[in-house]
């Protein structure tokens, strides 16, 4: 039986197990939307902006581990997805984005709503396709899901000319995908694994640095096992939060520019650094020439291009993190070392650092400190919520003061640093996990970048809790201006911030506000009671509050600035013997 291209597309999506699509209609995708009108098994969630659709698909993917799907129209619809695709690309999130395209014969003619989206997204997708023949459609969809979700995951775009979705042909679903030039390495080299095991055995002051790759690979259990049997302390990158329990006694929290004193010191004094699913981003390493100066570095990653890209690596292991960790654990168990005795001094030293300078802020009973709001969110959600963030101070406080014990509970734009990511991502996460509590920790700047998605949340009855840390400023940039630009607050004071309570109400959502610290908890508890619509919580916070500790740009990560001693970088600590 012949089917239209649009029908083939939706049938292919069903074959791939897709239940939810985020999207926005338009001229050249009318055929697809017409098929969706009667469709029972696949639900399209209409966002209010194409960027929101892609971020929502991204949040859906991060929270569920499935591939996120978005469908948009050609031209502006397609170009509006670029920020969302680039965000997913930097964080290795599996997405398949379908964009409409003008009919094949008009491509290249500057037709109405035409954009070369395949050309535009080439550098920010894992791969992309232009389907020129309807016969290739089903096979391309299958291949796209395969490419997006295997190896190092990433976004894939498929451009669909109008005549391809409107035409008809037989539906043929390919049995298998085989791409001769795409064969990711899943198992680590045996010799390398043996070497890694020996290096871990020999090390006196090892540190595990876990990243987003651990979560993508589903290797949290293995990571915990390795850390526990070898008594190795663990620090996480921003993307790695939740890959190892934040409340575990071996956890040192996040490292890097706003990492903890103890994590940064541990890395700088370690004699072995085991990077697992990390790419040594500049926000993590600070000055690379002074990064982990006494350590041998092992890097485990499925993507060979991540290895030795930013820092020297003594032992690379290319493979899927989970498989490699299973093999290393096996090798470690054969070695029967007395780990406790070997590591005690090192763990003691780290505990000393933990006591010396824990993450802290000065509580004030008259004005709300943003860190206090995050702590209270942790309390009322009992640490079990899915936390999405925007980008800036809100993101850092949410990373520092909420403890993530499980993977896929922390959704944040790490690589690209996209303001406006958190709210649509929270919508996607709530659709993927309808029974979970979902928060977006936002700033008053970034929430305004995708505030239109309130309508999406209201109409779908999504009880997303948005905590706006409202300081009237673009806080992180203001912080840099205060510290490094003589307090010249050029264009970071927002001036007119809308009344977020009224905005929420105008959309049919609930708006709440707290201006005193003792109002924070009641507002949160009130918000938790609402189960059928989104809530905006406007927390009017101290605008002077800054994120600490902080490593200034270009400094080594143990040259931190702390709250009490602003502008005076600490003298570098000597290596601990």
């Amino acid at each position: 039986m012949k089917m239209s291209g649009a029908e083939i597309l939706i049938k292919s999506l069903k074959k791939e197990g897709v239940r939810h699509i985020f999207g926005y209609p338009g001229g050249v995708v009318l055929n697809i939307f017409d098929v969706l009108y009667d469709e029972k098994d696949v639900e399209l969630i209409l966002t209010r902006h194409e960027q929101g659709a892609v971020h929502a698909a991204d949040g859906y993917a991060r929270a569920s581990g499935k591939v996120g799907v978005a469908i948009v129209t050609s031209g502006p619809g397609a170009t509006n997805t670029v920020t969302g695709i680039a965000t997913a690309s930097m964080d290795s999130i599996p997405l398949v984005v379908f964009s409409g395209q003008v009919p094949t014969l008009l491509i290249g003619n500057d037709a109405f709503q035409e954009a070369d989206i395949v050309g535009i997204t080439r550098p920010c997708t894992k791969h992309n396709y232009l389907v020129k023949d309807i016969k290739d459609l089903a096979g391309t969809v299958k291949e796209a899901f395969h490419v997006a979700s295997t190896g190092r995951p990433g976004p894939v775009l498929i451009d669909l000319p109008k005549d391809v979705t409107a035409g008809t042909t037989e539906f043929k679903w390919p049995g298998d995908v085989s791409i001769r030039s795409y064969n990711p390495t899943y198992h680590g080299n045996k010799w390398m694994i043996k070497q890694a095991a020996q290096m871990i055995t020999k090390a006196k002051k090892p540190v595990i640095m876990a990243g987003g790759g651990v979560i993508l690979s589903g290797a949290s259990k293995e990571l915990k096992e390795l850390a526990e049997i070898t008594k190795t302390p663990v620090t996480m990158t921003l993307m790695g939060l939740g890959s190892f329990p934040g409340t575990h006694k071996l956890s040192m929290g996040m490292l890097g520019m706003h990492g903890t004193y103890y994590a940064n010191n541990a890395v700088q004094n370690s004699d072995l650094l085991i990077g697992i699913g990390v790419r040594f981003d500049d926000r993590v390493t600070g000055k690379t020439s002074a990064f982990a100066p006494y350590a041998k570095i092992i890097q485990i990653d499925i993507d060979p291009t991540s290895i030795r890209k930013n820092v020297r690596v003594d032992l690379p292991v290319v493979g899927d993190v989970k498989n490699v960790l299973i093999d290393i654990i096996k090798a470690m168990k054969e070695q029967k070392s007395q780990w406790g005795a070997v590591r005690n001094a090192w763990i003691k030293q780290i505990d000393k650092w933990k006591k010396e300078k824990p993450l802290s802020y000065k509580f004030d009973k008259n004005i709300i400190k943003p860190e206090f709001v995050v702590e209270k969110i942790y309390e009322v959600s009992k640490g079990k919520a899915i936390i999405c963030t925007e980008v800036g101070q809100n993101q850092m406080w949410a990373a520092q003061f909420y403890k993530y014990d499980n993977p896929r509970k922390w959704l944040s734009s790490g690589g690209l640093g996209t303001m406006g990511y958190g709210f649509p991502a929270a919508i996607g996460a709530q659709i993927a996990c309808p029974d979970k509590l979902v928060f977006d920790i936002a700033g008053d700047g970034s929430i305004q970048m995708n505030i239109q998605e309130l309508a999406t949340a209201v109409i779908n009855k999504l009880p997303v809790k948005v905590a706006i840390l409202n300081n009237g400023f673009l806080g992180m940039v203001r912080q840099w201006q205060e510290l490094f630009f003589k307090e010249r607050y050029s264009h970071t004071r927002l001036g007119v911030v809308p009344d977020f309570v009224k905005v929420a109400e105008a959309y049919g959502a609930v708006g709440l506000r707290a201006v005193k610290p003792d109002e924070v908890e009641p507002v949160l508890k009130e918000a938790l009671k609402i189960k059928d619509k989104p809530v905006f919580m406007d927390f009017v916070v101290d605008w002077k509050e800054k994120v600490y500790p902080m490593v200034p740009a270009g400094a080594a990560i143990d040259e931190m600035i702390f709250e009490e001693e602003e502008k005076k970088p600490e003298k570098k600590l000597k290596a601990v013997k």
Partner: protein
Amino acid sequence: MRHTISVLVENKFGVLSRISGLFSGRGFNIESLSVGETIDPAVSLMTIVTSGDDRIVEQITKQLNKLIDAIKVIDFINIDHVEREMILVKIAPKKNDKTEVLKLAEIFRGRIVDSGASTFTVQITGNESKIQAFIELIKPYGIKEFVRTGKVAIAREGIKKTK
């Protein structure tokens, strides 16, 4: 350090721009590039010449390997290989210099492939240093036009030793 890299790719539209995008997106320059079909018409071979320190070239080859449409990547730096390039030079010598130019072309085993009232077009094939030497020698006689194909390379059989 200069590297000659061969990339076997799927013969599809957009592949060249994926490859060149890898270079331009990282600020790396392509010094020469030649592309042609292989015996299998579904596969093309690109020969790229680029420069950079070991870390840059390691990144380039890894990134090329990562492209879905790239089937195989070979960096010839540690492989014994034959390299060839061809140039066509249109030379406009003064009347008195004509024999001199023809002699030079002969020494370099060049072939005269075209001739006009006052010009010769010489075809020279060889490795880079030979071509460079010919250009230097012929320059004073007046080069009117000049094209080069870019390098192609192939490994020597049997002795793929690592330097």
